């Protein structure tokens, strides 16, 4: 032992190469050691749920920063890093994820995207919500603005998933979950969507409630377009039910005598009250236009197009709104079609015959009151009469053979007079018209069938 102590005095020259060796070891080993420790620390934290995790290694000291979701989780994460072999010190810069009070989560939908915002309790629930949103909204961009926070109410995930399902039913709007109170606003995508959302909200997890549901139903739209080129009337949009649907299409068939009715209507709930009472006269007004569009949006009726002559335009502008039920608005945008070129009386007669061959002027049964459905036909007759200003026209009434002949005679005269009055009211000079009734004396078809009788009940225009 003494020798060892004596010899040790001569060991110092080896210190010089030792220092070089030490320096080399330090030079080459530091970076790999740090990388190895960083990797081992990361592996040790693999199963721990943390946010904003950052690991920095200097020598054998690990600086560990992260946000944990509970105090136990935080302590166990620090302990796991501390237990990594080779780690000398852990600089603990971990903290708890901030607590949100109130805990607010929201989903907002606009034209292009759905934005999820507010707080989410865990990274797993955040990604679950994002995935669910992408799956439910198929193709719509989903943007993630959620941050993480503690303090979520129980069963948060279930509630949020249910609300995401509702955002899919909105056209635009926002759903906010504040603690366990739900607030909804915006507009439903489809008619009935608002009711569907309200029904679905009944399935919210226990403890959750709806604070405000301001989801609006989309406007109830009905549209009719009269196309003079294709000679069609296209109906699109909604009707309240199948009965109203059938009634509306039948009314359109009566009013539009020469147009083919293209029916693209769908039955849906949510119609404003008095829907049929407003739409039927509006269709009547549309039938009087040469070309036009009728748009019924909730309780607003917009009619645009060209009337056949000035008086018709004035009548439609002033008259249609009065026929509507209370609370309905009428916005006419009626212009007048340029007057067609004058024609000679022969052509005029031909035009009258063509028109009256397609449809007949109809009256209340047994009376001389013209039915409103005939307004479109009468407007065309008036337009034609305006094109031959020099021709005198005889308005001739006929009936079928039912009933007593004197009564029929009187009825045919009254009906012819009613038509003449209508023409004069529309601005035509009274002296151009004479009204004549022939009762049932000039049938054009047999009076033994209903069809034949219907053909015989007629008004003819004869140019003199």
């Amino acid at each position: 032992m003494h020798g060892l102590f004596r010899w040790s005095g001569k060991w110092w020259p080896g210190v010089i190469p030792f220092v070089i060796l030490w320096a080399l070891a330090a030079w080459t080993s530091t970076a790999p050691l740090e990388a190895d420790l960083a990797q081992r620390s990361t592996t040790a934290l693999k199963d721990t749920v943390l946010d904003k995790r950052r690991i920095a290694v200097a020598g054998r000291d690990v600086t560990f920063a992260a946000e944990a979701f509970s105090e136990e989780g935080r302590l166990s994460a620090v302990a796991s890093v501390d237990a990594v072999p080779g780690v000398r010190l852990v600089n603990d810069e971990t903290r708890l994820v901030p607590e949100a009070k109130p805990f607010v989560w929201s989903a907002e939908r606009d034209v292009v995207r759905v934005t999820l915002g507010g707080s989410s309790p865990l990274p797993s629930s955040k990604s679950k919500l994002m995935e669910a949103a992408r799956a439910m909204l198929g193709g719509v961009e989903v943007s993630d603005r959620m941050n993480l926070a503690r303090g979520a109410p129980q069963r948060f995930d279930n509630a949020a998933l249910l609300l995401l399902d509702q955002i899919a039913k909105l056209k635009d709007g926002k759903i906010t979950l504040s603690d366990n109170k739900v607030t909804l606003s915006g507009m439903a995508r489809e008619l009935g969507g608002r009711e569907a959302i309200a029904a679905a909200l009944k399935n919210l997890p226990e403890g959750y409630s709806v604070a405000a549901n301001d989801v609006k139903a989309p406007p109830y739209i009905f549209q009719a377009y009269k196309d003079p080129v294709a000679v069609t009337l296209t109906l699109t949009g909604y009707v309240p039910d199948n009965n109203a649907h059938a009634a509306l299409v039948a009314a359109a068939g009566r009013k539009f005598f020469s147009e083919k009715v293209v029916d693209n209507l769908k039955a849906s709930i949510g119609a404003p009250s008095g829907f049929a009472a407003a739409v039927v006269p509006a269709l009547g007004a549309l039938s009087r236009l040469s070309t036009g569009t009728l748009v019924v949006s909730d309780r607003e009726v917009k009619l645009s197009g060209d009337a056949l002559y000035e008086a018709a335009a004035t009548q439609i502008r002033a008259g249609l709104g009065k026929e509507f039920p209370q609370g309905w608005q009428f916005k006419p945008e009626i212009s007048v079609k340029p007057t067609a070129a004058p024609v000679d009386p022969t052509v005029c007669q031909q035009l009258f015959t063509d028109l009256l061959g397609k449809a007949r002027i109809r009256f209340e049964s047994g009376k001389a009151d013209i039915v409103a459905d005939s307004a479109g036909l009468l407007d065309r007759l008036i337009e034609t009469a305006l094109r031959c200003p020099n021709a005198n026209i005889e308005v001739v009434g006929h009936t079928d053979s039912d009933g007593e002949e004197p009564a029929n005679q009187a009825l045919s005269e009254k009906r012819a007079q009613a038509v003449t009055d209508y023409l004069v009211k529309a601005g035509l000079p009274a002296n151009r018209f004479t009204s004549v009734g022939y009762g049932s004396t000039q049938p054009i078809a047999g009076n033994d069938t209903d069809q034949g009788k219907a053909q015989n009940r007629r008004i003819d225009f004869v140019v003199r």
Partner: protein
Amino acid sequence: MAYLTTFFWGWLLGSLLLGLAMGWISIVQHGEGVSKNWKRWLAALAVVLVAAALSRVVPGRFGYWLDLGLIMFALYLCGCAVGSWLRDWVVSRSAPAA
């Protein structure tokens, strides 16, 4: 410690061998050794450094380099001791024969 030895056994072996060689040479080397006074100071320095390493007061990379240096130096000293003892044993065994 176990981690360091497995990670850097090459460098540690190097310092052990360096120590063996130095110990081997030191027996037959002529010249001044380190004085007693110096030894005391050096021992005190070693104690301070070991204490610093154990108490982990030196932070980061410097702390690691200190640890590394101390382990390597301990092995160097072990090498020196074994080398000196072996050389002394060889010398003393061959001396009577000569």
